[in-house]
């Protein structure tokens, strides 16, 4: 990763995506790189309106806006003043969207968590990080979920 390249951090509100965020912040502080937090999902608030949602209850009904708000809040809490951060939201197949976004931004690195929330989302996210690893043209840093006992130590 060169100094002027940015780091793309795909976020979904999961624990590992927060860990990915922390690692990315650490790297950005060391390198001076800009971070772009990207939320990529199949659905957004326009495809899943609260009033007439056609999607089943669960993680998929959480709109992009909610997750990005959480991300913004967490980033604000932890972001050192000297780091440049941006936020982006994209709708579509997450792995494709992430790889294309990183290519378009000429990112030097993608920092991505390897597992998400539920079984379904975990499965989906597992395959997302896998797919990103395969399709991305830049380096991909995979952050693994810490084991329970380590997470609390």
């Amino acid at each position, binding site marked *: 990763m060169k100094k002027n390249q940015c780091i793309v951090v795909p976020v979904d509100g999961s624990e590992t995506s927060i860990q990915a965020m922390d690692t990315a912040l650490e790297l950005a502080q060391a390198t001076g790189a800009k971070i772009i937090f990207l939320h990529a999902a199949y659905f957004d608030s326009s495809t899943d309106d609260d009033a007439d949602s056609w999607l089943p209850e669960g993680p998929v009904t959480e709109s992009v806006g909610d997750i990005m708000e959480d991300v913004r809040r967490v980033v604000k809490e932890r972001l050192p003043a000297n780091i440049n951060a941006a936020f982006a939201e994209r709708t579509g197949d997450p792995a494709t969207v992430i790889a294309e976004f990183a290519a378009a931004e000429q990112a030097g690195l993608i920092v991505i968590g*390897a597992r998400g929330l539920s079984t379904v989302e975990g499965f989906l996210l597992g395959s997302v990080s896998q797919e990103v690893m395969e399709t991305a043209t830049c380096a991909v*840093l995979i952050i693994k979920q810490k084991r329970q006992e380590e997470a609390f130590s």
Partner: protein
Amino acid sequence: MIKNILVPVDGSECSDRAVIEAIAMAEYCEAKLSFLYVANINQLAINAYLSDAILDAVTKAGKVILDRAMETVPTGIPKEAYSETGAPAVVIMDFVAEHNPDMIIMGSRGLGLVKGVLLGSVSQYVVEQSKCPVMVVK
């Protein structure tokens, strides 16, 4: 903080790029680099079939790869080279268990036994098994 970076190398182009990424990372984080070359030979095959001459050749090839990686590192960055024999994925994870690196940086595809296929699966295996962050370099 990232203080110990493990860089498994195999002499492939992707592995060379991983070395460059790792050096940049080590500079940023003031971390130590450990290069690991795993000669993909089955120990039993060595005992049973392989002559010392072949073993020497393989070891030399590994030394060349490790030396090249070590030479790329600018002075001031702590570095070490390790050469092992066995199945790369397994040996890498054994090394990780023993040395506890904070990050692993490796190429996504190398020149393994069945070119590409096997080493593709090495990085895959390491990503799956490792508890520490793994950077896969294209």
